[in-house]
């Protein structure tokens, strides 16, 4: 196993564990404000200090991990749940009119500046975690559809698909029983990458106030709150930013490591 994969998996698991633990226990309740205790630098009682409302930053980061992971994971889920079947269908009916429509539709979504559209969606439908998930999820669809089609196409020329055809299996059954299991690894790799992009996108949206709404904690919102305080209490800005950075870095390293293992298209001598 490569070093990157190990470090990446460790970082990712660390934040996932933080999020899981937050369901059972957090050091302090983040909905109780203690103004008298505000903007304390990290100390023994508050390992990462407190914010402008006197809330414990470590507890906020733990709760924020929950929001970030949930939003990004569901957004990737939307992308996979719609994109992969579309891609499988396109590959099965390659060259058909529907294939053409699906692929041009994908190109079209790619042409939209994703951030602008995410902002547009949340502006019209209201700012909430759910709308952030939908807005990020939509842009994951073409990513998975394209990749699925691209890796499924050569599989359709292989002998085992031919055998399945001879057995009289339909295109749908071949896609589900033979093509999909063979591309699953790559979907996991791409899912990891999209997951990291989703974390960044969620942070951006909640930073400009269009993601999860208070009192739900989110890393982006923590940064937005910290912006005016950055000169008096740098730790409130440093901590959530580092959390985003490390989580995204972990997912990227893990994705790269997994790709090196699973993707046959990567030339061995490149890295």
């Amino acid at each position, binding site marked *: 196993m490569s070093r990157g994969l190990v470090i990446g998996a460790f970082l990712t698991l660390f934040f996932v564990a933080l999020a899981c633990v937050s369901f059972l226990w957090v050091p302090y309740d983040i909905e109780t404000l203690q103004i008298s205790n505000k903007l304390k630098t990290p100390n023994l009682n508050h390992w990462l200090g407190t914010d402008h409302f006197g809330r414990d930053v470590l507890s906020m980061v733990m709760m924020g991990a929950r929001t970030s992971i949930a939003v990004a994971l569901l957004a990737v889920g939307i992308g996979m749940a719609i994109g992969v079947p579309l891609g499988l269908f396109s590959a099965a009916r390659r060259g058909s009119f529907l294939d053409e429509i699906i692929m041009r539709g994908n190109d079209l979504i790619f042409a939209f500046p994703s951030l602008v559209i995410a*902002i547009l969606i949340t502006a019209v439908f209201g700012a909430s975690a759910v709308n952030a998930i939908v807005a990020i999820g939509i842009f994951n669809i073409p990513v998975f559809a394209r990749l699925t089609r691209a890796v499924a196409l050569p599989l359709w020329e292989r002998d085992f698909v031919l055998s399945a055809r001879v057995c009289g299996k339909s295109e749908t059954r071949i896609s589900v029983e033979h093509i999909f299991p063979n591309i699953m690894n790559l979907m996991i790799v791409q899912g990891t990458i999209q997951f990291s992009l989703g974390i960044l996108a969620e942070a951006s949206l909640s*930073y400009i106030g269009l993601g999860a709404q208070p009192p739900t904690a989110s890393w982006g919102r923590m940064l937005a709150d910290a912006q005016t305080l950055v000169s008096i209490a740098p730790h409130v800005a440093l901590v959530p930013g580092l959390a985003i950075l490390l989580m995204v870095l972990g997912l990227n390293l893990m994705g790269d490591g997994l790709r090196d293992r699973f993707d046959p298209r990567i030339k061995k001598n490149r890295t």
Partner: protein
Amino acid sequence: MIRYTIARFFSLIISLIVASLVIFLVIQVIPGDPASFMLGINAREDTLAALRSEMGLDQPLTLRYFDWVIGMFQGDFGNSWTYKTPVSELIADRIWVSLPLAIYALILSTLIAFPAGIVAASRRGGASDVTIMGATQMGVAIPNFWFAMIMVLIFAINLRWFSAGGFPGWSNPLQGLKSLTLPAISLALPQAAILARIMRSSLLDILLEDFIRTARAKGLTRSQALWRHAVRNALIPVLTIIGLQFSFLLAGGIIIEQIFFLPGLGRLIFQAISARDLIVVESVVMLLVFTVIMVNFAVDITYAIVDPRLRRKS
């Protein structure tokens, strides 16, 4: 080449039509009555009626759509409900911040990424390659608005080299450029990281090609072969990414402009959203999408000119 251009042009037109339909649908149809959406629940009936007739809401949908599209062709983007001025004037004002910012960031990102990618590829596996690749991993993972905050903390608050935000206008070009420097760096950083990685992997692919071996065989050193033959060929995929990045930088300015209080398109669209000024939102989004689609089209055509193989394939 002509057939390829025509085919691409055709899909460009379809993209633009579908894009405008989607934006029109999201903004004018889905909220139900845009006028009451814009004015809120406590609006008086006569104010609502005035806005409805100003936005032409009493007319059928198809007519409104064509009015909007034809208006844009004539440079008429409607009037802003909150600013009480034509949207075209607002855009014309703001574009002089957003466009230079995007170009500035694009130049910075290219200036950082090219040498970094080339050095990393030519010393593959060496210390400088590992360092550069590590740095790009960080660059991709850093949220650019956080990076912007850190830079403000260091360079504006502590060192006082730059102002923490605002834009003095172009009357003094140097001052204007200076105030765009921190924003441009924060926009450029993640893009430079991506570009450097693509430059490196694209170079590594090309270094395996036969013509590089031929170049080495006729006596060129490794770095001569790299500079004379590989870099030029590696530029093709890099060019595509630069094109895509430009549109990303233009749209990505929304957040960065917000942090640095820059009066650009991003801030305009953001203020318009908070003020529920849908006319401004609609036109600025359409303008951004239009720019992205046009840039992609231009990249595709340039690509076909640079790489003749592509023309034959299509």
